[in-house]
C-alpha cells in the first residue's frame, strides 16, 4: 500500500467524472462501468492526482489526515484495478 502512495497517478483518459451530492459518479467509456466515489475528499484527490508527483502529496494537498492515508491508498488501488486512475509514465523515479 505504501507503493500506491509513492507512485504518480492520473485520471484515466477513458473516464468521465460527474459531481453528485454524495461525491461523484465516474463512468468508464471503455468497459462501460459506473463507479461511485462516495467522499468529496476522494473526488478532490482523484481530480488532483495528475498534478502531484505522487498520490501522497495529493492526499496532503486535499487535507486528508495522515491517519486516513492507508484507507485512501486501498481505495486508490481499487480505482486503479478498475482503470479509473492510471499510473503516470513520468512518475518513473518512484517505480
Amino acid at each position, binding site marked *: 500500500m505504501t507503493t500506491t502512495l509513492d507512485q504518480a497517478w492520473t485520471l484515466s483518459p477513458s473516464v*468521465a467524472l*460527474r459531481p*453528485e*451530492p*454524495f461525491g461523484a459518479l465516474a*463512468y468508464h467509456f471503455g468497459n462501460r462501468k459506473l463507479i461511485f466515489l*462516495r467522499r468529496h475528499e476522494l473526488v478532490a484527490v482523484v481530480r488532483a492526482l495528475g498534478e502531484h508527483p505522487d498520490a501522497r502529496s495529493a492526499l496532503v494537498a486535499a487535507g486528508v489526515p495522515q491517519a486516513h492515508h492507508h484507507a485512501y491508498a486501498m481505495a486508490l488501488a481499487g480505482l486503479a484495478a478498475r482503470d479509473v486512475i492510471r499510473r503516470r509514465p513520468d512518475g518513473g523515479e518512484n517505480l
Partner: protein
Amino acid sequence: MKLVEQFELGLDAPICLTWELTYACNLSCAHCLSSSGRRDPRELTTRQCEAVIDELQRMAVFYVNVGGGEPTVRSDFWHLLRYAVEHQVGVKFSTNGVRITPERARFLAATDYVDVQVSLDGATAEVNDYVRGPGSFDMAVRALENLRDAGFRDAKISVVCTRHNVGQLDDFQALADRFGATLRLTRLRPSGRGADVWDDLHLLPGQQRELYDWLLARGDRVLTGDSFFHLAGFGDALPGLNLCGAGRVVCLIDPVGDVYACPFAIADQFLAGNVLTDGGFQRVWRDSPLFAELRSPQTGGACASCGHYDSCRGGCMAAKFFTGLPLDGPDPECVMGHSEQALAAPRTLPGVSQDHSRAVSTRKQPVMLTLLTSRPAAPPVTACAGSPLAGFVPEATAP
C-alpha cells in the same frame, strides 16, 4: 447514507436516459411499449436534437439509450450518432436490425463509445415472429452477422421475456455466444400496445420462478437493465439497484421532446415537461414537480406491512399504472401473489395518451394466432347441411 437512499433522492443528472428519436418503425411489434409505427410530424429536428446533445454534454450525461420506434429509419440518425460521440455522450442504441448493413456495421465497428442492441423476442423465428412480425427474426440475425463480420465487439441481444420465450433462455445464450454478443433480458411491460397483449404474454407465476433461478445461476454474464427487481421477493436480490429509478436515475425523452419519468411510463400522469417549451432538459430534470414528488420518500402503502418490501420496493410503477392497480400497492406480478385479488377484481385501465400505431395493417404485422391444440366437440355446421335441424342437439329434458 446508503447509496440506494441517495439514488431515491435523485441525482444531478440521470444515469440511464432513454431517448426515443422517432415513432416511425418498419415493424409493428404486438407489445411495442411506445405504440410506434408512424412518424409524428412534431418530432425534433436535426438542429433541436443537436441542442439536446449539447445540453447532455454540459450535464455530463455519460451515455444515452437511443430507441424509438426504429431510430435508424431517421435519415439523420447516423449524423446524430456521430454528433453525440464527438460531444462525449456515448450512445447505446436499440434496433430491429433493418439498417445494419455490412457498410454500417463497419462504421459502427470503427466508432468508439457506441453500443448496439439488436432486439429479438424469440430464439427461433417461430417464437420471435409471433410477436415481432414475419421476417423480423431473419432481419435481426442478419444484422448480428454483419456486426460480427465487421469486427464489432460485444453487441447486445435484447430480449423481452414472455410466456413463449422464457423456456429458450439457454438457446438465447447460445445465440449470443455464436455472435460474440452479450444477452440482455428485460421485463415485458403492459405499456403502449403491450397493454393489449400483457394478459397473454406476461410470465406465469411458475415461469417467474424459472427466470429468477436462471438469473441467479447463470445471470452473471447477462444484462437486465435492473428490470426484474420485483422478483427480489423470491429471496436473494438480483444484481443491480433493486429500486424503481423513475425520475430519480432514469427518464425518457420522447420523439417530440416530452420528458417522461421512465421509458415504460408514456402517459400524461408521468409527463414532467418538454425540452422545447420548458427551458431545456436540465430544467425539467431538476425542477419538475413530478420528479420532485418521485424523489420524495415513499411510504410503501399497502406493501409496507409485507416482509419483502425492502427487497422489491413494491415493484414497477408503470406496470401497476397500466394494469389499473394502485401505485402504492403491489406489482401486478408480485411474487408473493399479493396482487391476485386486485387483478381479479374489476379494474379501470388508463386510456392511451398517444398512439402512433399504423392505422392500416401491413404484411409485416404479427398475427397472433395459434393452431388449435384440442379438437372441437363437434364439427361445425356447414352451409351445405341439408337437415332443417342441422346443429341442433336435443337435450334431455325433465319429464
